[in-house]
């Protein structure tokens, strides 16, 4: 019997590994169980679609985006494109957009900033039965609507999301993101099978207009308005679907600095919106979404933060150790180290942590390959996968710590036209 059950192993690390493997196994089993219905329902009815594009200082990409929207395979008389330029763009966005008016594109200019405002303005003027929000730096394959819109035959479906991948990754940061997005493609389809899709990406998602008519437009004070909308749909008891092969390409931030800014907004928005919809966390209200998926998201974040803190602490201790050893030794005898390298197999360590980590990597590889196969996107590098694991966890933890710090102590912040001043510190001091 195991006599050294948990000795010399960090029990917290074992817990994290157990949880990660458990959830990964569950997701993969769910995938295998539902694989036969991974395809999309055929479009029987060509509903009228309004594509809404909000743009602020997007002169570089707006022309391509509009052309891309025009090229989408859908009956021309059932497709409407609305562009709203807002926040008084300082570049040629409006001028370029207006040049497409002769092709039927409706262009508006709005003084107020904020994506929510722009989308709500467009919503009021949209005539379609289906609303598609599209970002100005997004490119959809022409067949996306034919793949996504079949789901709306089910009257309980209020949203359909695509498979979002990054466009032509070139820099290191972009390659890392590419792998991350591919995991997202797999997970979102799993969540679809479980009825637990919790993000409808603002980059490209289709909604049923009647939902907005009944439950209002975008929350203009929310910095992640797309996340809020999805949780709103879920909380009202409707369905959110996903097509794994409706490919939408988005331009990912090139540098880690730019990526940091983006993720800060995402994470802070996640914290804020989750608190707003806390009935969807750790309750049985919305089935597996609220009892398992949302809690898992929160637990994963908590685990990452704790593990990371522990790693930093032990690394710091190791550094201190090394320094004190150096002081005691009065010298750093590097040549001696060479004679101390032990090549005997006796010293090979095969413990639970290594086995579990190896298994987790295999599971991850499976998810990655499945996403590649079923989405139809072959342009991702396998090497990026390994870099993702090593590098991403550290960066991810740092961003989350920053987001939590902001939530507690941040003062007035601006995220793309939306002002945020909602930190715990601000709330406490305003009450004084």
């Amino acid at each position: 019997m195991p006599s050294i059950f948990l000795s010399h192993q960090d029990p917290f690390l074992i817990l994290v590994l157990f949880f990660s493997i458990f959830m990964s196994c569950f997701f993969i089993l769910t995938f295998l169980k539902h694989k036969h219905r991974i395809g999309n329902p055929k479009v029987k009815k060509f509903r009228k679609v309004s594509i809404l594009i909000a743009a602020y200082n997007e002169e570089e990409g707006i022309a391509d985006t509009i052309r891309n929207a025009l090229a989408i395979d859908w009956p021309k008389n059932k497709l409407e494109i609305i562009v709203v330029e807002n926040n008084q763009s300082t570049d040629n966005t409006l001028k370029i957009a207006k040049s497409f008016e002769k092709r039927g594109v409706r262009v508006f200019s709005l003084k107020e900033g904020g994506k929510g405002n722009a989308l709500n303005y467009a919503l009021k003027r949209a005539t379609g039965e289906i609303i598609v929000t599209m970002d100005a730096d997004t490119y959809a394959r022409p067949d996306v609507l034919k793949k996504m819109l079949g789901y709306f035959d089910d009257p309980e479906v209020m949203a359909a999301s695509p498979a979002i991948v990054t466009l032509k990754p070139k820099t290191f940061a972009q390659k890392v993101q590419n792998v991350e997005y591919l995991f997202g493609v797999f997970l979102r389809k799993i969540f679809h099978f479980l009825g637990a899709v919790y993000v409808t990406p603002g980059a490209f998602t289709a909604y049923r207009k009647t939902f907005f008519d009944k439950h209002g437009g975008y929350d203009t004070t929310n910095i992640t308005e797309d996340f809020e909308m999805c949780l709103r749909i879920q909380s009202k008891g409707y369905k959110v679907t996903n097509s794994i092969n409706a490919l939408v390409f988005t331009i990912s931030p090139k540098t880690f600095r730019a990526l940091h800014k983006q993720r800060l907004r995402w994470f802070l928005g996640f914290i804020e919106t989750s608190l707003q919809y806390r009935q969807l966390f750790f309750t049985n209200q919305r089935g597996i979404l609220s009892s398992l998926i949302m809690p898992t998201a929160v637990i994963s974040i908590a685990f990452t933060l704790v593990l990371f803190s522990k790693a930093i602490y032990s690394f710091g201790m190791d550094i201190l150790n090394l320094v004190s050893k150096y002081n005691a030794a009065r010298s750093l005898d590097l040549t001696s180290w060479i004679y101390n390298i032990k090549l005997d197999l006796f010293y090979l360590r095969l413990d639970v942590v290594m086995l579990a980590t190896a298994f987790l990597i295999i599971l991850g590889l499976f998810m990655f390959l499945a996403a590649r196969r079923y989405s139809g996107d072959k342009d991702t590098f396998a090497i990026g996968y390994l870099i993702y694991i090593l590098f991403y966890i550290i960066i991810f933890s740092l961003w989350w710590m920053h987001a939590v710090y902001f939530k507690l102590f941040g003062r007035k912040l601006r995220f793309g036209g939306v002002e945020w001043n909602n930190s715990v510190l601000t709330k406490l001091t305003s009450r004084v």
Partner: protein
Amino acid sequence: MGRRINRTNLLAAFAITSLIFFSGFYLNDVLTSSKLTELQEFQDFLNVESASIEAQYDLALQNPCNIAGITELNAELNEFGDKLTYLETISPDNDINVNNLYNYYTVLEVKHYLFMTEVNAKCSDDYSTILYFYSNEPQICESCSLQGTALTALKHLHPNTMVYSFSMDSDSKVVGTLKQLYDVTILPTVVVNGKKYEGYQTRKELENLVA
């Protein structure tokens, strides 16, 4: 229908994960046991080598010179000591098997040391002997791991140096006697050719002492 599928999948996932972890614990256990067995066999071998040297000594009418295998035995004792230290880190604290192995190991070391002292006195060969007193607890001895590193390197560079390591963490009676004999109070302490030096010695300093 969906709920039942989910419950089945959750149970299956839990079963698979548990299987992985129990396999891991079991594998760990099996490996550690096999390492213990390996060291026990190694110790039997060392015991035979040690006895063989004694027999040769007696056969040569207590003449310690030209006896085969003495330098090799010291190298093997060092290797044994390293492996035993490693086994200690992966075994539960105060494992009786590890303790027994260690206590007998100190006996073999002292026997070898006493034999080398005779060789130095009676033969033309010249071997240096170093008694090394240490602790694996970082609170008790900060620079012991560095001292160990330096001694290992020294032995590689000067094969005629015999190094004997004695851990102050153990309850070996042999070590207790040595501690009293050389009045070891500070760690690390090295006794080079009979002379005591307290505190960390760099490899260069050790090389000067054995020269």
